[in-house]
């Protein structure tokens, strides 16, 4: 039966607060898979065990023959910000008008009606980071959301998971086309450092004022520098788009100069300089790998990268960079990473617990563990196999997609 994503129904089972998933193959992301049960109460995983007793008022879901995994997580997307099926009117990914726009926020452009949201739920994805593109040297704020078909404010689980920055070809191409700096990698790095210097000066001026208002002046409000303060204080990582090895090293150099937390996003040449990356303490968000090498800086792109970095001790997640690769194909990206050396167990972690750790939300999402959010997906088989389908998707304990009742 042809089923356009617009026809997928959302099930808001308001009255069912307690669910018992029985007899599924539980891939918790902590240790080996085993056959067991999960009890869900009020949107959280209350208990995981074997042979849990069925209690009154519990809805029972028979997961016999099914695999049970945490919902998938993509820590770098433009879901809802660059809407699918629409042209300019739905594309809010890049504020080309200036290279330094750290004060922009992805949440102010996110459209939950993006048809990709429901499709991604159907493919087992339950939470993603959303934010600006890579046209700008400093692009704005990435936030973490649950995939819900309502307002971004309700879907939001963490407002700041990254301050987007970009090095390499994209910012300089935009600069060239607009006849303004940066037009070179030197210009890009200078713009970034200048912004960090100015934000530091702004912060220090305000700290002096707060310590001694009588004898000091407050800095006049500047939204750009204000938005960089959490980055300077290491509360918000710099999320640096980089492909080429030297651009990765530039990111490391600048992060070290300003003592920042940072992630290396895309990290296409990462496998060529694993030692430097491991030493730097950076996390790596690798992808989108399934696609053409469109630019010189992507000419070494390979699915071997996540496995090689993971083996070197770098904390790695796999990303689609939706819509570059559609978010619904995240599991296919993980399958290829597994095939090209990462192995299935680690590749599954790279789309669950590892991205949860990278965005600082592993207390809530990324694995099947008592106390975590009930973001749970029942699969017909190994999700990394081509024909597997998500049969039931729960987000915060609510049934978001149900193909179990049909069969």
């Amino acid at each position, binding site marked *: 039966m042809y*089923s356009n994503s617009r026809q997928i129904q959302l099930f808001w089972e308001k009255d069912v607060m307690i669910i018992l998933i029985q007899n599924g193959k539980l891939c918790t992301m902590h240790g080996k898979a085993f056959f067991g049960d999960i009890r869900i109460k009020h949107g959280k995983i209350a208990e995981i065990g074997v042979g849990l007793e069925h209690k009154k008022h519990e809805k029972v879901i028979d997961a016999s023959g099914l695999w049970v995994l945490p919902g998938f997580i993509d820590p770098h997307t433009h879901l809802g910000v660059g809407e699918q*099926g629409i042209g300019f009117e739905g594309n809010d990914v890049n504020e080309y008008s200036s290279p330094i726009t750290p004060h922009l926020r992805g949440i102010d452009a996110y459209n939950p009606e993006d048809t990709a949201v429901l499709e991604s739920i159907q493919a087992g994805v339950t939470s993603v980071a959303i934010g600006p593109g890579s046209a700008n040297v400093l692009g704005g704020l990435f936030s973490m959301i649950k995939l819900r078909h309502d307002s971004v404010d309700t879907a939001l689980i963490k407002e700041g998971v990254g301050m987007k920055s970009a090095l390499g070809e994209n910012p300089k191409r935009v600069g060239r086309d607009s006849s303004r700096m940066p037009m070179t990698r030197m210009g890009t790095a200078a713009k970034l450092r200048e912004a960090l210097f100015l934000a530091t000066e702004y912060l220090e001026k305000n700290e002096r004022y707060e310590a001694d208002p009588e004898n000091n002046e407050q800095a006049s409000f500047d939204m750009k520098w204000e938005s960089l303060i959490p980055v300077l204080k290491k509360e918000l990582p710099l999320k640096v788009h980089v492909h080429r090895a030297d651009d990765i090293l530039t990111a490391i150099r600048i992060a070290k100069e300003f003592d920042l937390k940072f992630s290396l996003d895309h990290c296409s040449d990462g496998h060529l300089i694993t030692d430097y990356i491991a030493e730097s303490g950076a996390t790596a968000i690798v992808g989108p790998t399934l696609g*053409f090498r469109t630019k010189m800086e992507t000419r070494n792109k390979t699915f071997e990268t996540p496995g090689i970095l993971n083996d070197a001790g770098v904390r790695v997640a796999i990303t689609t960079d939706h819509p570059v690769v*559609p978010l619904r194909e995240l599991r*296919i990206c993980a399958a290829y990473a597994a*095939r090209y050396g990462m192995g299935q167990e680690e590749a599954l972690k790279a789309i669950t617990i590892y991205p949860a750790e990278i965005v600082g939300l592993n207390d809530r999402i990324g694995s099947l563990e008592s106390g975590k959010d009930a973001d749970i997906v029942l699969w017909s088989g190994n999700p990394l196999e081509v024909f597997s389908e998500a049969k039931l998707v729960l987000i915060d304990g609510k049934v978001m997609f149900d193909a179990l009742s049909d069969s």
Partner: protein
Amino acid sequence: MILIKNGLTYTMETAPEKMDILVEDGKIKALGHNLNVPEDCDVIDANGKMVFPGFIDAHCHLGMWEDAIGFEGADGNEMTDPITPELRAIDAINPLDRTFEESRNGGVTCCASGPGSANVIGGQFAVIKTVGDRVDDMIVKAPLAMKCAFGENPKRVYSEKKKSPMTRMAIAAELRNALAKAKEYNEKLEAAKDDPTKKPGFDMKMEALLPVIRGEMPLKAHAHRADDILTSIRIAKEFGVKITLEHCTEGHLISHHIAEEGLSVVVGPSFGDRSKFELKNLTFETPGVLAAAGIKVAIMTDHPVVPLHYLPMCAGLSVKAGMEEEEALKAITINAAEILEVEDRVGSIKVGKDADIVVWDKHPFELDSHVLTTIIDGQVVYQKAE
């Protein structure tokens, strides 16, 4: 000479079975069981492996857009004139681009490559093998078809130049005008057989359209939206020319019309961003819906939109979305060959056809499958390291 022994072989002619394949002088010489091993014959032990014909992509731009280079390697769209039938893919394909190696290492041995969709008439496609250092030696059929395009691409490209076409009306008018002029050119040429003084002055664009007008070569019509697909059919019927439907993204919404017209469809790329309005109904369900309606369907990657070696993945995901597995295999083998009219040479494992054969460690639709050996024209062009 090569003998491929004992592999579970999908000939695409008969039911899959374990068999031996003897390859000689670039062709499939014999099929059978327990074939004698001739002298001076290399033996490939395919026991426990699966053997398929080399896969065929009926619509891509392999070699037309070079890997990782921008403008300097982009030769698929001559965006200076919307009507360029005189352009030939063979004059721009770079067979030394590394995507050729990746494609044959991924089990794709043959493809139809040609111009993009910026122009209303883009130029001539060619069918080529995915190995060689000189494109002229790689040709299976050239010219194959005349690329034409409807929908957003031509009008977006030419709107920016403030030139026609800026609307779908103008796209259709440009195509009809070109075909009408070519028809007139053809009539004058035929009349001039009796009176050479009546021969029209040489016109390269008109010359290129003659095989289309004469029914020898099809239009290869890029269209996503349902109405654009139907416009392409309307025009083909008006001029009595052959046509194949390419992409056909909304084809599943009008499958009964397509089936009625008896046309073949090359569907894809279904893996990808719905980046334009005309792609809003893109789905992997399309090839299966069309095949179930009795339409001959091939599946494309549209490389580089999806890199060519992902062709089996595209077929596998079509099966997941509802296509019969056998139909999906046909869509990247014999159906593609038949739509390109090269089935005398490729598309199945049959005595007399080109020895384009690939040995896999498991079913090519599995995401963790590997090509073990690729043979093109009877030569081993790829062997997986142990």
